[in-house]
């Protein structure tokens, strides 16, 4: 095995503080980026891009957003779906008001709208904690979803009552709307998700991330070292909702192409929550692991019987997929309550010292 840090002495704090301090990790990351940016768009068909990769990336980004709030700051939210909706509707309004402005600007700007709404609903978090805060976010989920359905203004009084994504271009190439190719949409999503994952990872490894974790682990001691709880929590709500809102805008504009209020329902909130629980609370890479299990694995399971020639009906396959996914979630949680990210850490630690157990 060559997963070793032998000979890699860190002579500066900067090198020691790098997020990927081990050379093999950096190679691994470079390889993943190469596959994601070059191999997949070159060889991947519409099914891989539309049905697998784009949703995978969007869900991963939403999970990163929720993880900042729930995994890092310890504030459980059941309103992720609705906050994705806020991002999507905000993006739609902005893009139809000012169609001449680049769509990417509006996708990012919609994150700010979602952040503002997140802060508003985060205000009670100083007074209420744990279970009751989760109930408050659940109320936000239903309230916002109700609002989406009751305000035709949000969709510019469309007959369908749904967001209908307009055509927009980037350097003359269509990126949204029916004429945008899967490859283009995939590359735009991949770029945005990569950048935001990198920014989130930077934040959690610095002062702000430490403050969030301090609030999560022991809020009394956090106050004692000078942290203002309300500021720290509201900042977590803001950054988390920003990320979730951008994911929502991406979901509608670059994946679905149209969306009714139902698209942002409680099921979506739970899906994102499961992703971070399986992937690992308080881990950025865990969001990608969790999205693999929750989104990519069921697709693989569905394709499996046909590939090996088993004659099973589609409905039966669907049921089996649900069951297997459910069982896997439970197994993962029993085997490693800290999620796949922790399993991955442990495995890497073992590899480092292999073949000597200690």
């Amino acid at each position, binding site marked *: 095995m060559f997963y070793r840090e032998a000979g890699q002495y860190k002579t500066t704090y900067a090198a020691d503080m790098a997020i990927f301090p081990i050379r093999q990790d950096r190679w691994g990351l470079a390889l993943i980026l190469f596959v994601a940016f070059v191999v997949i768009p070159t060889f991947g068909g519409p099914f891989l891009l539309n049905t697998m990769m784009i949703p995978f990336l969007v869900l991963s980004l939403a999970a990163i957003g929720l993880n900042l709030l729930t995994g890092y700051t310890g504030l459980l939210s059941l309103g992720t779906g609705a906050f994705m909706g806020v991002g999507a509707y905000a993006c739609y309004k902005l893009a139809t008001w000012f169609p001449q402005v680049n769509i990417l600007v509006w996708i990012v700007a919609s994150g700010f709208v979602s952040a503002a709404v997140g802060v508003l609903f985060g205000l009670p978090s100083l007074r209420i904690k744990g279970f009751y805060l989760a109930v408050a976010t659940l109320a936000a989920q239903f309230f916002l979803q109700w609002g989406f359905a009751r305000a035709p203004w949000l969709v510019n009084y469309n007959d369908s009552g749904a967001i209908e994504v307009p055509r927009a271009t980037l350097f003359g190439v269509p990126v949204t709307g029916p004429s945008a190719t899967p490859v283009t949409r995939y590359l735009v999503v991949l770029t945005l998700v990569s950048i935001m994952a990198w920014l989130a990872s930077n934040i959690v490894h610095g*002062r702000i991330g430490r403050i969030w974790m*301090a609030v999560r682990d*022991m809020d009394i*001691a956090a*106050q004692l*070292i000078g*942290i203002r709880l309300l500021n720290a929590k509201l900042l977590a709500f803001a950054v988390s909702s920003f990320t979730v809102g951008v994911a929502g805008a991406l979901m509608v504009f670059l994946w679905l192409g149209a969306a009714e209020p139902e698209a942002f329902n409680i099921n979506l909130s739970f899906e994102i929550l499961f992703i971070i629980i399986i992937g690992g609370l308080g881990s950025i890479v865990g969001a990608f692991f969790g999205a693999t299990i929750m989104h990519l694995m069921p697709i693989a399971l569905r394709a499996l019987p046909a590939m090996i020639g088993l004659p099973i009906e589609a409905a039966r396959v669907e049921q089996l997929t649900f069951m297997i996914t459910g069982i896997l979630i439970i197994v993962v949680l029993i085997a490693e309550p800290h999620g796949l990210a922790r399993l991955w850490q442990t495995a890497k630690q073992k590899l480092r010292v292999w073949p000597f157990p200690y």
Partner: protein
Amino acid sequence: MTGASDEILLDVENVSLSFGGVRAITDVSFDIRRGEIRAIIGPNGAGKTSMLNVINGFYHPQEGRITYRGRTRARMKPHEAARQGVARTFQNVALFKGMTTLDNIMTGRSLRMKRGLFWQALRHGPALAEEIEHRRVCEEIIDFLEIEHIRRTPVGALPYGLQKRVELGRALAMEPELLLLDEPMAGMNLEEKEDMSRFIVEAKLQRGMTVALIEHDIGVVMDLSDRVLVLEYGRRIADDVPDVVKADPKVIDAYLGVGH
């Protein structure tokens, strides 16, 4: 011990604190001079921890005045006390369990780090320079406390004695003027107590901190402290240099005599 000045850093006057019907502190006055190690002793339930909680703003006394650095203060919140240079460790360790030793100690620097979300998100330029500068301070504290080997260990997995050390490290990282230590040596063996005593003395002598120390081990208290406040049932029963306190019959009755 030497090193104390005559300047009064903290003055507590006629403080009373009660919880519903329970009187935790009754009309206690004492002061802490800059640069001294001030011990607070007394049997369990005497109100020692409550007194520290009053000093750093967790509890608000019903009566009395507290003057810190020459300013008599109104109600103060714990995070404001931290901003004014008061740091604290807890009787039952209050660390950030999911974080590593290094991160716990770095969190103690939060107030001194100024770069906002924008630079933090980039983790380059000023934010990185700041992170390195504070990392250096924390590494120095880690060396001082001899906890290099557990730098990357989540503190929840550490034995109690080491957790107490990390908690002291986090308080030292704040570079406070006044360090409040609530039974920092409880449950430690002799060797660990000697280490901890050395750290406390050095915090005073080399880092110029003023220390308020709650401790049950009378030997340690007599060795370390400049003056000793003795509480019993929330009242002050003695307050003097160690040798005088040790000979006070009231103290012997209340505390030393019963074999703590």
